[in-house]
């Protein structure tokens, strides 16, 4: 029933979209560049992705206000793939072949990225992907502005094992059931083995997308944690399931000082709907936090807050910025720089020009696009949740570190090249 319903919805939606696409096509003037924005604005991932669409629109408006790209105005084309993975591919195809966009900023979950990949390869499009992910991928048509596992997951677990992180000896790897959590946990398991943690001290649990009843899992975690060794939870839960998970965690009276939970997909935005007082001290690992203090970040936060007010976003007075939003912002600016360097929006020329681009990012560092591997060099921060839903940075790297898309903890990866094949 669900699929048939979705099918109907899809047909209705895509015909609507097609109509609006036609309308915007006729309005297009010659001296504009079209960019696609491919984020779920409804469904389970809307909690995370809506803010990325807003960030992209804000950045585009800002670039336009400062003269556009090569004197041309950017025209955003927004589509809603509705947290429906096959629909992502359809929408991507529509953006590239019908709307003729020169670049697409979008996707959050790895399953959506995997779904659009064949389209971008076939049509030689260009995708900027702004979210931390599991690695194991290096595509010519994609630039990854989020973190690879060695820029987020590995440092986070190392921190948990350190004295300040509580010296955890047992780990619960908890995630939503899809490619990102499964692969990340595979890497983490291998990493933990290399640190001398045995399989008996690792518990792996998965829940479906949109899962809302975490009672059993919390009970299991409590039991697992009572076996005499300090236990920590590594959460790769994605989307709106995080709200019931953290609610249940608070209700069950689990404190961060007893069982710390470090999350890889929970930031300021996801915590907006949760009472964070019982969660004080729970952790998240990212490459950016809103609470980082530097002039670039202050300007970035102000820009977004003003944007939210101007656009009358829901709860505009409480909007927050987070890591994938920063990555979106960096991505759009780097693409702009590359287009200006290449003096063209042609995919292959822009890809060549992207190598080695630098940008002064809100995380306080000048981040660089690796000359070869399409990933950003990023700093890593670990933050603890404060009562106001922001994060206190408790650990950080000295500077940006290079991404390893092929994790050395997966067998066979040592033979893979760190640059994509070009045609």
């Amino acid at each position, binding site marked *: *029933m*669900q699929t048939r*319903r979705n099918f109907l*919805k899809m047909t209705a939606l895509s015909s609507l979209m097609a109509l609006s696409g036609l309308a915007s096509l006729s309005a297009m003037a010659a001296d504009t560049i079209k960019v696609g924005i491919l984020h779920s*604005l*409804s469904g389970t991932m*809307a*909690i995370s992705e809506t803010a990325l669409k807003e960030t992209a629109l804000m950045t585009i408006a800002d670039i336009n206000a400062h003269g556009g790209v090569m004197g041309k105005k950017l025209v955003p084309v927004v589509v*809603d793939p509705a947290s429906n993975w096959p629909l992502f591919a359809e929408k991507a195809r529509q953006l590239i072949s019908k709307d003729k966009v020169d670049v697409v900023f979008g996707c959050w979950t790895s399953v959506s990225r995997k779904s659009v990949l064949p389209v971008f390869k076939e049509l030689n499009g260009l995708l900027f992907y702004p979210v931390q992910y599991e690695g194991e991928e290096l595509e010519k048509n994609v630039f990854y502005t989020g973190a690879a596992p060695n820029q987020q997951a590995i440092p986070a677990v190392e921190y948990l094992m350190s*004295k300040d*992180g*509580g010296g955890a000896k047992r780990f619960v790897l908890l995630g939503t*059931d899809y490619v990102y959590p499964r692969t990340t946990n595979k890497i983490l398991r291998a990493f933990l083995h290399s640190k001398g943690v045995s399989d008996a001290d690792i518990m792996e*649990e*998965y*829940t*479906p997308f*949109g*899962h*809302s*009843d975490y*009672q*059993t*899992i919390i*009970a*299991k975690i*409590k*039991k697992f*944690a*009572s*076996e*005499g*060794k300090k236990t920590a939870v590594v959460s790769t839960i994605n989307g*709106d399931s995080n*709200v*019931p998970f953290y*609610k*249940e965690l*608070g*209700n*069950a*009276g689990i404190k*961060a*000082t*007893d069982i*710390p939970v470090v999350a890889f997909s929970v930031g300021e935005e996801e915590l*907006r*709907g949760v*009472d964070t007082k*019982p969660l*004080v*001290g729970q*952790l998240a690992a990212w490459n950016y936090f809103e609470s980082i203090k530097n002039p670039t970040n202050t300007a970035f936060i102000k820009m977004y807050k003003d944007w939210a007010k101007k656009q009358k976003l*829901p709860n505009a007075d409480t909007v927050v910025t987070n890591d994938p939003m920063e990555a979106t912002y960096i991505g759009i600016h780097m693409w702009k720089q590359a287009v200006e360097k290449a003096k063209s929006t042609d995919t292959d020329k822009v890809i060549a020009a992207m190598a080695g681009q630098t940008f002064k990012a809100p995380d306080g560092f000048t981040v660089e696009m690796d000359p070869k591997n399409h990933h950003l060099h990023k700093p890593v921060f670990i933050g603890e949740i*404060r*009562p*106001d839903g922001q994060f*206190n*940075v*408790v650990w950080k790297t000295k500077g940006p570190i290079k991404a390893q898309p092929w994790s050395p903890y997966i067998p066979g990866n040592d033979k893979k090249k760190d640059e994509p094949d070009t045609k």
Partner: protein
Amino acid sequence: MKRFLIALLLCTLPALPARAALDPALVKQLAAEDSDARIAAIQKLGTSGDPDVLKVLKALASDSLMVTPDGRVFLMPEDKAFDAATGAEIDPVPAEYDAITINNRIRSELDNAIAGLRLLNPDRAVRLAAARELQSDPGIELVPVMGKALAKETDAEIRHLLRFALDQANLASPDAKLRLAAVRALGHDASPTTRGLLLPLTDPANEADAAVRQAATASVKAIESRLAIGDTLGQIFTGISLGSILLLAALGLAITYGVMGVINMAHGELLMVGAYAAYFMQGVFRSHLPAYADWYVVAAIPVSFLASALVGMALECTVIRWLYGRPLETLLATWGLSLILIQAARVLFGAQNVEVGNPAWMSGGVEVMAGLVLPWNRIVIIGFTLFVLALVWVLMQKTRLGLFVRAVTQNRAMAGCVGVPTARIDTLAFGLGAGIAGLGGLALSQVANVGPDMGQGYIVDSFMVVVLGGVGQLAGTVWAALGLGVLTKFLEGWTGAVIAKIVVLVIIIVFIQKRPQGLFALKGRFVEN
């Protein structure tokens, strides 16, 4: 909490300048780079027994202890600054400063130190809270403080807690005799935490003394057998809790589909309407009655019911009425209606989930036995389910409307002949079913996410419950919901959430094939109609 602490600080501040100074070196050490140095400072300050230390440590815990680049540490409860060591006001406030941030390791030391200081407070409630705080892993450095407090303490409950905390701390004692006594005493407790504390002592690598190891093994065994009971009870509770949610989601459908025979694909959206009504009431209470904001849930009960009932009745009058007896068309039409309702919610409230908060009295949980915490929101929902069930039973069995509904269900033509206005009864019955769905939505808003397509996740479950229970039978729905809830939770504990979902569906398919009429079947002459 933070605001409360600040308020507390503010009222105690006027007394500050009169106090004796704390050791400035220790205070400065609180802002050290190295966590070990900071913890040493906290422990030293904490065991000094100086009551002024409390304010400094509390400020550190609430992010209002500041440090200037040149290392001056001061309290900054609001916009005034006070020197941490002397308590004197610093005027003007230093131009450059940063809050001293703490991590979990420091936070737990800090909590213990603060609790240790409050053990000598004259107020019983404060002492009790402090003793509770010390239940999780108190450090060995607190033993003298706790010993002193225990000697002075007269309240039985606090004494009990303190002795327990002392035993825990003594597990790390260098004296094997103290350790042995502590291990034996802790064997009488049945919490998972105690088990976690004792387990390392059964290992020769951690514990040199054989007698302590033996006692620890015996204590752990005793604890485990008691924990097993709590575990099973916990699983049954989570099963009943899931069952109550399934029941609330399905009860409305049991009336519209089960009793009236309308395959209502828009049922999930009626749940959604009820949940949004709760969101709406929360907004009204927050802006107009902030003092009673926690009671919006109670006010939302009639509002959710009416909102969904009105939407349901409107659907019945405009679409469903014309399609009675044509199940396939009803299915398609209500499906269309569900899409319309979802889009309407997107237009009205936005595509993103909205935040519906638990009121304070529904947050947290109650520890019914060691290691078994039952969350209040689940308990309230189970109670609410019973209330709704009673409401439906009374309406269907004891009122004229219920009588008419049952009569129309059993024999429409005959009921019409004896003067029952069948068309109006249909509308009212559909409204009742929709209203009950609205109440289900209200309950869901307290545990799950509220968004435009929240209903889609429940439509399949709801039909499953009604079909499994036997179409037309409210009692069947109750048993089916509880059975499915408990079954799902036991499977989840055993196989994980993903596999559990598959197994439950397979079981239902097999069951329906063997017994198509469901758990309870209607009996009697009218069945064939």
